[in-house]
């Protein structure tokens, strides 16, 4: 292999070649120039590689098993006050703990999925405009970074169907990271967190769904809450609803305002069927809501962009 100096000399020579261009017949200049550029690029890459290799040569190995450097200080942890947990993750842990206390198993959502789980298994007709509402990203192969945690419904139902046969209910909460192709501003992020709930049994009702959701938010905010609903539309639930709670006192609520917390509904028979569950024997409900918003409400945050920015100035506000 040529040394770095040799390569550099070669580059010098090559650079000198450029002067010849002007002496060439006009029709040959472009081609000649192009050839020179290609060679120059190659040489530069070789020089860079050689320099990197040389630099690596200089690197001294260390004793991977030692507790500290030779003649060095014993390492110490940073001061504990510096440390922080991400507020979204703290909130997710809190949400999970409540669902668990209410008898829900927890399953984490995937972060790359396919059309079947994201749409087909959820009763979205092929090519239906409702798919557009999700502003999904897609990979070259057609995989989808999921736009909602409902992408897990089919898996969760399949994995737990055996419980129905045992006379038990399926009760699972599915937190996860989801993605939508939208421009980022103070209130929009293309990457955010949701938590899905799925409940199936022989005889659960829409009234049960409202009961569970109210219970969850009452535990979450530590107070009795009024609830209300609005009609919604999701292909995978029938009926479909938006669920609202009265603004809790801890967020400055005085019994007047309402907060839209999540979308919910009775699971569409086609969704149960797709998971191999007989919709004439079993029925269920599901819901999904954002975690980011819960955190923003709790701390009075106004800029959602801070969550994924990894800025210590922001994170240290949440020091343990």
């Amino acid at each position: 292999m040529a040394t770095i100096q040799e390569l550099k000399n070669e580059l010098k020579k090559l650079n000198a070649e450029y002067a010849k261009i002007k002496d060439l017949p006009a029709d040959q200049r472009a081609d000649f120039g192009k050839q020179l550029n290609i060679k120059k690029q190659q040489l530069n890459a070789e020089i860079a590689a050689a320099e990197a290799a040389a630099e690596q040569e200089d690197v001294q190995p260390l004793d991977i098993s030692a507790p500290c450097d030779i003649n060095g200080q014993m390492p110490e942890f940073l001061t504990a006050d510096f440390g922080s947990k991400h507020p979204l993750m703290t909130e997710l842990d809190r949400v999970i703990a409540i669902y668990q206390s209410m008898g829900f198993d927890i399953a984490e959502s995937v972060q790359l999925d396919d059309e079947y789980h994201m749409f087909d298994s959820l009763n979205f007709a092929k090519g239906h405009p409702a798919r557009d509402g999700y502003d999904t990203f897609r990979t070259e192969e057609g995989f989808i970074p999921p736009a909602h945690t409902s992408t897990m419904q089919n898996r969760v139902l399949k994995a737990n169907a055996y419980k129905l046969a045992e006379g038990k209910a399926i009760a699972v909460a599915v937190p996860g990271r989801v993605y939508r192709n939208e421009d980022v501003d103070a209130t929009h992020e293309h990457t955010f967190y949701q938590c899905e709930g799925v409940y199936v049994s022989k005889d659960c009702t829409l009234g049960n769904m409202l009961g569970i959701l109210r219970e969850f938010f009452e535990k979450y905010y530590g107070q009795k809450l009024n609830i209300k609903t609005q009609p919604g539309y999701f292909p995978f639930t029938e009926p479909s609803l938006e669920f609202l709670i009265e603004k809790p006192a801890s967020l400055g609520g005085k019994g007047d305002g309402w907060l839209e917390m999540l979308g919910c509904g009775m699971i569409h028979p086609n969704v149960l069927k797709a998971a191999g569950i007989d919709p004439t024997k079993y029925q269920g409900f599901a819901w999904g809501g954002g975690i980011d918003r819960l955190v923003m409400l709790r701390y009075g945050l106004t800029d959602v962009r801070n969550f994924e920015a990894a800025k210590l100035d922001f994170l240290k506000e949440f020091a343990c």
Partner: protein
Amino acid sequence: MLISLNWLKGGLRTDGISDEDLVKLIGARLVEVEGVIDQTHKYDNIYAVKVMYCEAIEGTHLHLCKIDDGGKAEKVERDENGYVQVMCGAPNVHEGMFAAWIAPGAIVPQTYNTDEPFEIGMRKMLKKYNSFGMMAGADELDFGDDHSGIVELNPATAKPGRLISEMFGNLNDKILDIENKSLTHRPDTFGILGFRREVAGILGQKHTSEDWYIDPEQKFDNDENIKLDITIDEALCPRYTAIVFESIAENKNDYLNFDATLLSRSGMRPVNPIVDATNIMMLATGQPLHAFDYDKFVAVGGSKTPKIIVRAAKKGEKLELLDGTIAKLNPDDIVITSNNIPVALAGAMGGASTAIDENTKRVILESATFSLYNLRKTQMAHGIFSEAITRFTKGQPAGQTKAVALRFVEAARKYLKPLALFDTQKEKQKPIEVNLTLTQLNALLGTDFTADSVKRILENVEFIVSLDGENIHVVVPFWRTDIHIAEDIIEEVGRLSGFDNIPPVLPLHATADPNELFALKSNIRDHLAARGANEVLTYSFVHGDLMQKVGQKPENSYKIINSISPELQHIRQSVVPSLLDKSYANLRAGHDKFALFEMNQVYPRDLGFDNDTVPRSRHELGFVFVSQKEQSNYYIAKKYLESLLDSLNISHILVEFKASSTNSYYEPKRSAMIMCGDVILGYIGEIRHDVLRGFKLPNGTAAFELELTKLLDQEQGVNSKDFRTSDYPAVLRDITLTVDDKVKYSDVESKLRSILSSFIYKLVPTSIYQAEGSKTKNLSFHIEFASPDKTLTKDEISAIMKKLESVK
């Protein structure tokens, strides 16, 4: 979608219900109302006036006018006849006309719902003429964009001093701003008639659609001389109705009319009587209509009589649209053609070549439905988001095209005489029927409806219901294209009667299985944060350059084809590069020493697929330790790693680093592989200098990464730590061993431990020293040991110390 509350309330019994409550009910049982635009006083103090006297003022464009306002306005001066003086610059002002006059003290309607409402007063013009109020143009009244002159009112209905708001029905209105998204499946609610039917149902009132809508099969006497062929592809266009008209009056409004005021309140703009009538029909029924110039249509197609052919566009076909743009068509687009020459982009926009104008003699009116799937693609491909396509993409029912076309005949009678009607649908479609039981309904909702109440609720919105004991049989009206199964009917009953009336009941719950992965992550989070590290979240999407910077192959990552920017084009292969990427900004912000960690999923392609044939992920903990000062941080990272693994009770060893497909950023000479038995848990090391340069980070920056699911497999139920204490005195000693500088520290430590293994002991390294140029190094330790069952004698102690001190 904007809906005039006055229009909506027509035909409903809303006495005793405040607008506020009505809006609340709509919100709770039909659709979210995003806002209510209150126009109740928008047209206060705006009068019809007669221009009694009009004199042009030489050398200016102004006219001095005296108007008769019936003596209604206050704050004005009147002449001996009781007329008010107004200056007017409009070219069309003339004596004897009726105009709309904004009296002093009134707000110009155009500015009414803006941040700066403009109040009209008295102005002195040309330094000597007092001008009270103003005579208004259509734009100032907020009835369109026309600024060419003042509006003229029809003398048949205008009386001096009559309020404009009364003249045109009731302009004192509230406008509902409706969130369309949750009505995606409800084409019927995109027309006032359908929306009103729902509101009736919500109020518990029986709604009955008019006959023209439900049963339009009236006889239509076609003029035998008029021929027209329609060829459709039913997959693209389920039904096409066309009516040929003859123009019998100029397509122009002489006076401001009701349609203009209604269109304006519905977020549209008046154009001319024919176009306005098509738009009013669309707002009323949700069915968009389109008018072609008959003669132009025939001329374009080169056929004697019109031949309408609806087909998929061909790749590369071009069409000039009404707005002058040239649309490049693709096979997902549907085109209306005249004898195979495209003349309109179906559902989206008409073509320029067949537009009606002031010379139009005959008109072809189109009332059709198209595949919403295709139109959705057209919408996206051409960026057309008109009121018409918004409705078409909800899937307007084929059942109403003829009814709406015939209704248009009535609406446009003054301007157009119908000659012949053509329709591709020969037989009425069979309605959908749904069966369900009362038990099924109550079991799904958790309610106790009676069969009769279910019947009443559904019949209010024109379902046809028959009961047979438990069994409920429902015939679905043609406009409810969204109803197919029992659950759809159950939703209707729950929604119309109010889901909020269903009592929330908590079901009995079982116990949940703990989720080990979340528990593990929670433990890790607590452990690292308590030691000063900061948990972060970073995007799953990274730049191709970032991967190249750290030596990862971009082809080992999934690539997003519709990414927001190149920075977010690849799905990341590991967490540590994202942490390195975020470190420099934190250094710059003045944090001179910090540790970042993130737990998330990564998707290097070479992980392959799971059973579902979906890409497999790795749950990864990434950790970096960065300091402003250039120093070796390997041992700090190692301290974090080891304390973490100890807390999780996972035994591990560090062995020689081996490259994987994703860990190319570690400097092999200063890195290690983290093993538990023969399982690779992860990697730890300093980052390569060339990589750090790319991130502008100091040399010595260190990182580690662990595969979380592997940690789960290794977690040991029982802690192997020695929690015993001794009742006998412990021996405290500091020792220093001199060893060859090639000797690995861990070899020395394990020899010491094996000597101490029969005691209860503590072994803490305190320093490693090597003099410059020396071939040996000194390892110092602080050692405490005690026997579990006796006090050690001096001899025993010195024997042990001797052993310890002889370790090499």
